[in-house]
C-alpha cells in the first residue's frame, strides 16, 4: 500500500515537473517570425549535400539563414547581385573572374571566413557529385590569390560567363576546418559524407538551428552575426524564426489566416478575399491581379519526334486552342498574367530581351478558330464521326496523353483545361497523373506525348538558360536514357549554334538580336508551350504580429518571404504590438 502511494506521488511530481519544464520551452510569440511553405516532410538531416535536408540548409539560392553564399541574385526586382560573403566581382579577362571577399566575415564558431574556405567549398563540387557540381563544366580552376581574393578560371574550350556568374550564388561557403575532417572520417566517399548528420550546423549566417522535430523547425538569431556590417550594425529583428511543418496546404493556409504564421510561401488561392472580404491584415506584392511577381513558366512539352506530334503545325494548332485565361483563373487563382509566346519571361530582370512586336507577329494566343484553320487548311485534316480530326494519311489526332505528377493540384488543373480546350476543337488529349517517381521517369526518358515541367528559375543566366534547357540538343541522351533537359529531344542546328554563341557575347544590341533570332526559331517549331507564369516563390504576409513587409508600394526588398535577396525583410519588419 505504501509503495502504491509512493509511486503515485512520484508520478505526480514528474508530471508537474514536466509541465513546468515544458512551459519554458515555448518561445515568446512577439519575438518569433513564423514562416511556412518551405518544408513539407520531417527534416531528415542538416547536411546540405543530401537530397532532402532540412530546408534552411537546402538551397543556396534561397535559404541563406544559416550558411551563406558569396552573392545572392535578385532576379525579381533589380537584376543585381547582392553581396554577402563576397564583396564584389569583376572579369579580368575573357576567362578570369576575380571575386573580392568581405574581410569581416566569420563563422558561428568565431573562425574567419577565408579565401581558403571559398576555394574548398567550390572544389567540393569538383571532387564529388553534389548540387553545384555543374559549375565545373565551365571552370578549370578556383584558387586563392590572396586572403581577400579568389580567382575563378574558366575552361578555354568551354567558357560560359553566364553560368559562372550564376555559380556565384549556387554554393554555400562552408568552414573547411570542420568539413575537411568530415571528409576524412568518411574516407573521401560522398555516400558516407552524405550520412554525416551535421547536427547544429556551423555556418556564417544570421541564424542557427535552435530546435528541430518532424513538426517544427526553430532557428535562433546569432547575436554576434558578422553581417551586421552590411546593415548599419543592426541585427535582424526576429530573435527566432519558426517553421511549423504542416501536413497540407489547407492546414498551413488556415494557420496563416489566423495569424499563427507571419510569412508564407504556400499557394493560397483567392488571397484577395483575405483583405477584401475578411478584413485581415494580409498582403502580397501587388494589391490586384496578378498579386504575385511572375518569374517562372510551367510549360507543356511535346515529344517532338513522335508522329503526328512531330509536325510543328499541329503543335501550333494546339498552342492556339488552349484557353490560357481559364488556366490562370481556375488553376492559378488569377495569379498568372497573360502568357506570351516566348521563352523569355516578360517580367523581372530578363524582360529587357522580350521583343513585343516579334511575339505579336509570330506568336499565338487563345483562338480556337485559328486552330481549326490550321488543322483544316495547312494540315488538311478532316473531322471524323467522333468529332476528332483525322490527318489525310489516316492518323487520328489522339488520344494523346498529357502527364504530370499526381497531387500537384494547380498543374493537374492546368492540364485538365488543356485537354478540354483540345477536345473542344477536335484534338483528343487525355490527362494522366501518376505518382511523382513515374511521372519523373517518363519525362526524363522521353516516354510521353506531352508532359509538364518548368524549364528553370530566375538566374543571372536567364533567358539564355531557358533556351538552353528547351532547345539545346548537344549532350542530350537518346530516348530511354535519362535526360535532364530538352525532354522532347528537339534538335535544330542553328539554335544549337546560337545557344553556344550567346554566353561569349557582351554587346547588348548584339545580344538582343541573337535572342530575337532564337525566340523566332522557338516560335516556328513550338517544342513547348508556356501554360502560365508563376512566382518563383509565393509571398504572403500577415501583419498581426509583425509589420513593415515590402510590397509594390514599398519595394525595399523583392517579394520573397525571407529567402534570397528577400532576407533583407528581416531587418525592416518590426513588432506590430
Amino acid at each position, binding site marked *: 500500500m505504501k509503495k502504491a502511494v509512493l509511486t503515485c506521488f512520484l508520478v505526480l511530481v514528474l508530471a508537474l515537473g514536466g509541465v513546468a*519544464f515544458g512551459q519554458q520551452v515555448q518561445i515568446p510569440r512577439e519575438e518569433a517570425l513564423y514562416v511556412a511553405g518551405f518544408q513539407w516532410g520531417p527534416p531528415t538531416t542538416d547536411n546540405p549535400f543530401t537530397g532532402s535536408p532540412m530546408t534552411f540548409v537546402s538551397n543556396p539560392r534561397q535559404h541563406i539563414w544559416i550558411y551563406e553564399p558569396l552573392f545572392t541574385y535578385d532576379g525579381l526586382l533589380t537584376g543585381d547581385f547582392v553581396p554577402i560573403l563576397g564583396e564584389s566581382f569583376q572579369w579580368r579577362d575573357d576567362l578570369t573572374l576575380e571575386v573580392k571577399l568581405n574581410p569581416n566575415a566569420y563563422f558561428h564558431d568565431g573562425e574567419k571566413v577565408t579565401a581558403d574556405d571559398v576555394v574548398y567549398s567550390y572544389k567540393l563540387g569538383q571532387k564529388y557529385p553534389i548540387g553545384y557540381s555543374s559549375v565545373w563544366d565551365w571552370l578549370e580552376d578556383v584558387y586563392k590569390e590572396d586572403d581577400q581574393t579568389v580567382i575563378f578560371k574558366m575552361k578555354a574550350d568551354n567558357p560560359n560567363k553566364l553560368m559562372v556568374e550564376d555559380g556565384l550564388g549556387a554554393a554555400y561557403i562552408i568552414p573547411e576546418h570542420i568539413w575537411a575532417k568530415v571528409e576524412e572520417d568518411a574516407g573521401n566517399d560522398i555516400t558516407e559524407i552524405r550520412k554525416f548528420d551535421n547536427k547544429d550546423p556551423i555556418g556564417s549566417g544570421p541564424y542557427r538551428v535552435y530546435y528541430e522535430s518532424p*513538426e517544427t523547425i526553430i532557428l535562433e538569431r546569432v547575436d554576434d552575426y558578422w553581417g551586421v556590417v552590411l546593415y548599419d550594425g543592426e541585427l535582424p529583428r526576429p530573435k527566432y524564426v519558426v517553421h511549423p511543418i*504542416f501536413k497540407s496546404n489547407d492546414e498551413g493556409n488556415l494557420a496563416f489566416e489566423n495569424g499563427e504564421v507571419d510569412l508564407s510561401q504556400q499557394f493560397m488561392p483567392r488571397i484577395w478575399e483575405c483583405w477584401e472580404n475578411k478584413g485581415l491584415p494580409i498582403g502580397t506584392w501587388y494589391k490586384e491581379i496578378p498579386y504575385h511577381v511572375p518569374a517562372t513558366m510551367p510549360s507543356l512539352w511535346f515529344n517532338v519526334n513522335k508522329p503526328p506530334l512531330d509536325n510543328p503545325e499541329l503543335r501550333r494548332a494546339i498552342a492556339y486552342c488552349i484557353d490560357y485565361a481559364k488556366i490562370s483563373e481556375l488553376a492559378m487563382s488569377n495569379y498568372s498574367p497573360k502568357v506570351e509566346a516566348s521563352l523569355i519571361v516578360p517580367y523581372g530582370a530578363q524582360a529587357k530581351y522580350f521583343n513585343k512586336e516579334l511575339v505579336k507577329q509570330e506568336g499565338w494566343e487563345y483562338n480556337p478558330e485559328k486552330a481549326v484553320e490550321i488543322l483544316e487548311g495547312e494540315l488538311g485534316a478532316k473531322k471524323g464521326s467522333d468529332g476528332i480530326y483525322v490527318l489525310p494519311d489516316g492518323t487520328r489526332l489522339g488520344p494523346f496523353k498529357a502527364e504530370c505528377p499526381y497531387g500537384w493540384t494547380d498543374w493537374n488543373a492546368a492540364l485538365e483545361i488543356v485537354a478540354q480546350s483540345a477536345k473542344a476543337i477536335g484534338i483528343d488529349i487525355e490527362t494522366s497523373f501518376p*505518382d511523382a517517381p513515374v511521372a519523373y521517369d517518363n519525362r526524363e526518358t522521353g516516354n510521353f506525348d506531352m508532359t509538364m515541367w518548368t524549364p*528553370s528559375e530566375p538566374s543571372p543566366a536567364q533567358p539564355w538558360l531557358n533556351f538552353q534547357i528547351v532547345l539545346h540538343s548537344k549532350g542530350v541522351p537518346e530516348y530511354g536514357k535519362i535526360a535532364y533537359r530538352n525532354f522532347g529531344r528537339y534538335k535544330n542546328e542553328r539554335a544549337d549554334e546560337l545557344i553556344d554563341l550567346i554566353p561569349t557575347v557582351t554587346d547588348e544590341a548584339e545580344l538582343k538580336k541573337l535572342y530575337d533570332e532564337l525566340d523566332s526559331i522557338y516560335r516556328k517549331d513550338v517544342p513547348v508551350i508556356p501554360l502560365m507564369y508563376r512566382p518563383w516563390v509565393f509571398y504572403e504576409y500577415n501583419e498581426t504580429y509583425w509589420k513593415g513587409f515590402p510590397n509594390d508600394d514599398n519595394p525595399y526588398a523583392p517579394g520573397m518571404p525571407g529567402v534570397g535577396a528577400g532576407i533583407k525583410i528581416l531587418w525592416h519588419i518590426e513588432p506590430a504590438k
Partner: protein
Amino acid sequence: MRKFTRYILQKFSWYLLAFFLALFLNFLLPRLVPGDPISVLVSQMMSGAVTSEAQERVYQSFIQEFGLDKPFFVQFFTYVGNVFKGNLGTSFSLYPLSVNKIMADALPWTLFLQFPAIIVGWIVGNLLGAFAAYRKGNFDRILFPVALFINSVPYYCLAIILLYIFGVYLRWFPIGGGYSRTLLPSWSWPFIVDVLHHYFLPFISIVLVTIGGQAIGMREMAIYELNTDYVTYCKMLGMGDRKIQSYVFRNAMLPQITGLAISLGTMVGGSLITEIVFGYPGIGSTLFNGIRRLDYPLIQGSTLIIALTVLAANFIIDMVYGLVDPRIKAAQVEGS
C-alpha cells in the same frame, strides 16, 4: 509434452516459411511498380541551373549507394542479410534517415492510437452486447441495428464521415496531424490537451467500429448462453439474477477474448487507413508516403513490421490454443 513440442515445432516452421514468403513479397512488389524513385531524389537535390552531366553523376552516386545497379537476386540477398542484422536500410524519400529510425518514430503513434481504442471499444462493446441480451426490449431493438450498421460501414468510410462532420463542417476538431504545428512537444497542459484534441476523432472512429463488432458478437453469445440448460437449472435452484448473469457473462466471454487477442496482435497493421484519413503519424501514414514516393526500403520496412506482428500474434494464439484446447493439439499430432 513431447507431442506438444512437436506441435510447436511444426507450427513454427510453417510460420517461418510464411515469414520468408512475406520477406520476398515485400521486396518484390514495390519493384514491380513502374517509375524511378531516384530521379525524384536527384531533382530535389539539384536546384536552379544544372547540367545533365552533373545530374547524371549525382544520379549514379545514389544508384550505387542503394545498390540498385546490382542484379535483382544480389539485391534481395543483401536485403535479407541486412534484415537479419536488424538493418532495414536507408529511406529514399527521407534520405538519409534510416528506416529503423523512421519505424521507431512511427510505431509509438500507431500503438498509442490503436491499443487504447481497441481496449475501450472491446470493453464498451461487450458490456453493451451483454446488456442488450439481458434487457431485450427497446434497448436491444435500437442497439442491435445501430451496431450492425456501424459494423457494416467500412472503418475508413466512418472515419471520413466523422472527419467531414466534426472536422471540416463543425470545426470542433482539427482535420489532421498528431498535434498542432505551432506548439512544441513538451509535458505541458496546453500540449497534452492539444494532443488529445487531435487524438479524439481517429480514436473514436476505431472505438465505434470495435464497439459495433463486439456488441453484436457478445449479444449473440449471451443469448445463446441464456438459453442453455445450466441457466435453467440455476434459475430453478432459485439463484439470484446477478449470480446467473455473472456465469453467463463469463462463458460468453471466451470467444470474445480470442477476438481481442487477434485484434491486439494485428493492431499495427489494423487500421492503416485511419491514419491516412486523419493524417495521423504512424506506420500507416509512413507506408502511404513511402508508396507515393516509391521508397523501396521504407515500403519494405513498414510491410515487414506489419507482417512480423501479424505472424507473431497468430503464432502466440496458436500456442495458447494448443495449450488450452486439447482437441486442437490432438488433431494436429494425429494428422501428421
